[in-house]
């Protein structure tokens, strides 16, 4: 198993996109963990006199309208966004897989109704779901995760459906079924491994979109509650004074863009690295393992 993991990471590292994304995502996780114990300035300390300060030794990126230190809030914000991304990807992945299982089920009534349901609900945008949820639940991380997770799960099912149906109707599945393979065994033995590349790309795209959605929903007041640090929060607070202090807008936006680019490139690189058909190194590992 370790050799297989080594082959995946090395082929990830070989690609320029893979290298960049590994570095950025690694930094993101590191900063999130560090911010649990330390930030350059304590978050609650808002220095009334030192409002909108330019970047200095004390405040590496300066302070915002309330005198709070921008860097510290961004570091703390990375924790929230990491949590949102992980939960959203899990929610979307689970929902997507459930729908794919239903769509490729041998019982045609279930298959057809799930296809119809996905087509009907997919055109309902994430923001509407968020608003509908925000009314009873109020602004919270859960709203973002459920709203985004629901939308991206549907999207995942729709994007992976053609490939999944191709596999479900293939000769090797028919051979497995004629030998008594159960639906679950076909799903996880044949269907999931063959749509894994599509799943990985789509989930990493969804992760990126979740970060973008967080900043949008927070600005509209239905995302992260006002007290909690997040990149969307940092971005939204700079909006009111952009005419006076344009520079402060730069940092949060830059962070979000760099992270989302990294997530997208990570998806493409991971797809080729994990897939034995796309990655000869993985195939060599398999040959060595059987010879051993």
């Amino acid at each position, binding site marked *: 198993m370790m050799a297989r993991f080594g082959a995946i990471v090395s082929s990830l590292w070989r690609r320029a996109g893979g290298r960049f994304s590994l570095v950025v995502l690694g930094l993101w996780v590191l900063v999130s963990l560090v911010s649990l114990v330390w930030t350059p300035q304590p978050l609650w300390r808002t220095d009334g006199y030192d409002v909108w300060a330019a970047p200095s030794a004390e405040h590496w990126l300066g302070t915002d309208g309330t005198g709070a230190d921008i860097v510290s809030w961004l570091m703390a914000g990375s924790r929230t966004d990491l949590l949102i991304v992980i939960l959203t990807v899990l929610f979307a992945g689970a929902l997507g897989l459930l729908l794919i299982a239903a769509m490729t089920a041998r019982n045609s009534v279930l298959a057809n109704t799930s296809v119809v349901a996905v087509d009907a609900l997919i055109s309902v945008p994430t923001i509407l779901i968020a608003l509908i949820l925000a009314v009873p639940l109020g602004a919270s991380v859960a709203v973002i995760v459920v709203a985004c997770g629901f939308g991206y799960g549907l999207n995942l099912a729709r994007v992976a459906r053609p490939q999944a149906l191709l596999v479900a109707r293939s000769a*090797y599945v*028919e*051979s497995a079924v*004629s*030998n*008594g393979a159960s639906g679950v065994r076909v799903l996880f033995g044949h269907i999931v491994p063959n749509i894994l590349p599509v799943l990985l790309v789509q989930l990493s795209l969804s992760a990126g979109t979740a970060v973008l959605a967080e900043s949008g929903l927070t600005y509209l007041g239905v995302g992260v509650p006002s007290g909690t640090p997040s990149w969307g929060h940092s971005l939204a607070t700079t909006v009111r004074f952009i005419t006076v202090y344009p520079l402060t807008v730069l940092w949060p936006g830059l962070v979000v863009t760099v992270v989302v680019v990294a997530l997208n490139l990570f998806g493409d690189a991971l797809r080729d690295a994990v897939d034995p058909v796309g990655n000869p190194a993985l*195939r060599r590992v*398999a*040959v060595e393992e059987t010879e051993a």
Partner: protein
Amino acid sequence: MKNGLTGTAQRTEAPTGEGAEAPGAPMLRGAHIDKSFGRGAARRQVLFDVSVDVREGECLAVIGGSGSGKSTLTRILLGLETADAGTVAYRGAAVTGGRRAPGRQALRRGSGLVFQDPFSSLDPRWTVARSVAEPLRLRHRGMPADEVGRRVAQALRTVGLEPATFLGRYPVDLSGGQAQRVAIARAIVNEPKVVLADEPMSAIDVAARVQILDAFAAIRDRRPDMALIMVSHDLGVVQHIADRVVVLHDGRVVEQGPTGRLLAAPSDPYTRELIRAATPFVGRP
């Protein structure tokens, strides 16, 4: 009985002269089978009152042009598809009549499938070892790993593939001929009583087809009691391997009989036309 080009093992010469019936009692009996597709205006009947038997250890070829219903017929015989009318019996037990039919369960356990397109019949993300072992793991849950390994290696050797070099490979590293032989190995690993090969060679190079024929010949040498149903539209292949032939034309059996007699003196006009149109003898004797 035809033996392979490489004549791997000389089998005792079976009596294949005129009129002699191939050995073995009828194992699979299909009687008065009708089948149609689609509903309402688009309804199209594909099989009309077809009766066909498959005998123990026999190689039965089912030939006919595209659209003649040969694939549908063989899938009904193996219980993979339901018939609208007619009955199928496997060793006396009923196969038709719903999923729970006794004969159907026994037939499912005792049969193997080989498909036309080699690259769609192997999971691209599974190694050869795992693909060939799948029927064993499904049918014999408790079988120990080394026993599975032994039988997989045995199946690969039978189809002329050296286990050491092929077990760890993925389909993408195989040629068409090699991939189809892995699929054949998978079909026989469970020691089935009957194997259905649905046009196993039409998607493969002529040079590689010969190796597939050798694989089938080697299998029938090792397991004389196993029946092989070969669906094809190529009379050269049929002449090379089949003991008996069933000719289908637009869903009806127009002629049945031993290969030699049928090809030498076809009684039905359509069979004659098939023989006339087939690719003729090539080059030196």
